[in-house]
């Protein structure tokens, strides 16, 4: 067992964990933060994407011990007092989700993309979301949602 201290969605947790415990299982099984789902076991689908110290990571590929001393943001840490972020609103308004399973990972990946490229082209959005798979939407509405947010910032 290894002792870790991680700040997740604004709350600091102290825990003893097995060194092999994946961050996604730590979040889901130990902390009960089940907003981030698991879609694969090969870092291919992106459903489990969270932010680790401000950078999007696939939490099935990070050990909980690697998050020691770090700050983690999950989709559950985005909306405060029912106030959705611009991306969450855009996903809703653009019908950028159907079953919604990939949505938390998509939103977290899109945040990272927009931080790196605040005003991406549609192609840049598609390439930026390459690591996140969706089976329902054909991606078109997801791309529109991300572009909406970038335009929102331009006009703001």
């Amino acid at each position: 067992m290894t002792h870790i201290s991680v700040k997740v969605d604004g709350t600091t947790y102290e825990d003893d964990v097995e060194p092999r415990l994946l961050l996604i299982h730590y979040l889901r099984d130990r902390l009960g933060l089940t907003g981030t789902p698991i879609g694969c076991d090969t870092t291919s689908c992106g459903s489990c994407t969270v932010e680790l110290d401000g950078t999007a990571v696939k939490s099935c590929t990070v050990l909980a011990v690697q998050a020691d001393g770090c700050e983690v943001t999950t989709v559950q840490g985005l909306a405060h007092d029912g106030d959705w972020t611009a991306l969450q609103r855009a996903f809703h308004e653009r019908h950028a989700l159907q079953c919604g399973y990939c949505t938390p990972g998509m939103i977290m990946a899109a945040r990272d993309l927009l931080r790196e490229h605040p005003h991406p082209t549609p192609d840049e959005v598609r390439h930026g979301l390459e690591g996140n798979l969706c089976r329902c939407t054909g991606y078109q509405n997801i791309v529109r949602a991300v572009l909406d947010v970038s335009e929102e910032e331009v006009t703001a």
Partner: protein
Amino acid sequence: MSETVEREVGRARTRKEDAHLITGQTNWTDNISVNGLLHLSILRSPMAHARIDRVDVSAALELPGVIAAFSGRDLAEAMGSLPCAWPVAEDTVVPDHPPIAVDEVRYAGDPVAVVVARDRYTAADALEAIEVDYTPLPAVLDIEGSLAEGTALVHSDKGTNRCYDYHSASGDYAAAKARADVVVTRRYHQQRLIPTAMEPRAVVVTPLAASGDFTLYSSTQIPHVLRVLLAVTTGIPENKIRVVAPDVGGGFGSKLQVYGEEVITLVLAKRLGRPLKWTESRSEANVATHHGRSQVQDIEIAARSDGTVLGLKVSLLADMGAYLMLLSPGIPVLGASMYPAIYKMGAYDFSCTGVFTNRTPIDAYRGAGRPEATYAIERIMDDLAAELGMDPVDLRRHNWIRHEEFPYTTIAGLTYDSGNYEAATDKALALFDYDKLRAEQADRVDHGDTVRLGIGVSTYTEMCGLAPSRWLGEMRYAAGGWEAASIRVLPTGKVEVVTGTSPHGQGHVTSWSQIAADALGVPFEDVEVMHGDTMLAPHGMDTYGSRSLVIGGVAVHEAARKVVDKARKVAAHLLEASEADLDFADGAFTVKGSPEARKTIQEVAFAAFASHDLPDGMEPSINAEHVLDPDTFSFPHGTHLCAVEVDTETGAVHIRSYVCVDDVGKVINPMIVEGQLHGGIAQGIAQALYEEALYDEDGNLVTGTLADYLVPGAPDLPEFVTDRTETPATSNPLGVKGVGEAGTIASTPAVVNAVVDALRPFGVQDIRMPCTPERVWQAVRSGKETSA
């Protein structure tokens, strides 16, 4: 007071479903936890076919935290065979299908043993500790070779790898062929696909020992059907089992199933008296969740030299995989009625042979039989056009059912109620700029451009509304095709809609709210829709095969109509008027000629709740239920056009533009319809260009993870241009037709037609799906060599 309320049907309402999904307040099955929850894991066969000589779980049992471990033999008596509900032919061979293999494993992934432990990591350790001795047996991997003399048997007790033969014919195909100027014969391959819903499957069972009640949560599309079949399979009475489908992360047919894991988890929760959870990993899903397609299609079309189609002959070899799942034999036969598609012809001959192989079982996937049928007819229409030197659109125009000919009964025996293929096609061609693209294509050929342009068309129809119960009975399907809806108007005037459909991304809550709001004249926001729980919604046939709107949605409308009928009686009594004198509009009853004499439906609901002053003999409720059994199917249609650029030097295919005009009848929510189309088109393109489940020579799935199985990502897909025409269905009061599988059905042939079209100058007639760069390159190369 009398300003017109905006109708809900037809509005692009954002979804009620989204709020919890975009904030992570979700209820996926794997999210469910209860005190004392234990984890169940399954050891799977690493071999395609082997005798099980010994299973030793003793070392696993010694690990700290392991509660129990069992072999298939330990549990054989507690579990019945997994059900097949669709033995399409009288003599269909239905092998025993134990949830855990007992004596023999028949595909790589077949369950061999099960462990229960305090957490998933301990359970994973325990699987490693189980010892199994196998004696390898020869594996049957080739669909075409499966019936050859001397081939090994997947089920030796059955003496054959033949599951069934099915034949139907209408008109005299041999005579049609004899009269034909041209006969085109092709063999198409429907590669095996892995459904890959983003949520892997999961099951949680919580037992209540004292009463013998069980709640089973499952990522299923079919909670109602599952409940019945769990009772049949385990002997636990149906009225002791509650099945809940919480948030379900996609299904596409792969969760239209009674899976062994559901049976195993229920049986072991009962035996151990503890709550259990099983969650599939993705690499487990790729072998353990049923696959789709996997057919060899021999197609022959006979036509006159002017393009008039005279007859069609279809002969299929359909892979069942190692066992029959719920619907396996029925899927190819479901497609049988769709091969003649939208074309008039005088003769049609269909036959199908189902065969067993040592691979993961096959069952319904995204269109289930209908994409396969549409692919074959739309591909061979292109090949026929090429043979005749006709434009493929002109050939279709020459043969399709004209708008004024509806209703039209096809050679396959289906009666299409309405359609307008001309309108959809003309609109699509204009959006696509067809003539300009054809000119560019010719130009590139003239200049010997190494990057060729190809244009593909697909004028499809879908068969939605699965299905009239009588038809299902005739097809030897074990259950009906009805759907239930009930509506409760609460004392405050808020409305609860209970539906038997079980959505997993389709937006039923929003669409059903729109339907109910319009029918009752209540605000959209006042409607709640409940589903997916056999305790809340006791009657249902669930969601698959593009049936939900056409049957379930229409049932909501009919239940609302019954509510209004009951409310009218109460309102007439309260207003001291005759029912015939009442108008109902915008949620209020008014007396004809005196609009001030008015009762809203909310006021009526409260009066029915208080029951102080109801008509004599009336029961104190305006709630209603409607169970709808459709008379017929519905037939959306459309025209999909795809332009591809094919690099003849690398084999790379780039989709340059994709345009579709679909006619799904009356549209409830255009935004949801468009979204469904986008996702479906993406899957259709994926079959055309990317996805294929591949096995090695020993029967191991080599595309066992998402790192190997190529699900397209955002950069792999183009923008789709979608538009629509609207020809209402005449077979239901809403005029709706359904849309769930349209994109998948239409797009695969459009894309492959485009790829082949680009390469026809090289003598290429067909490219096997998926049209990978290697296959395209090989086709160009062998074409060049042939023509040299």
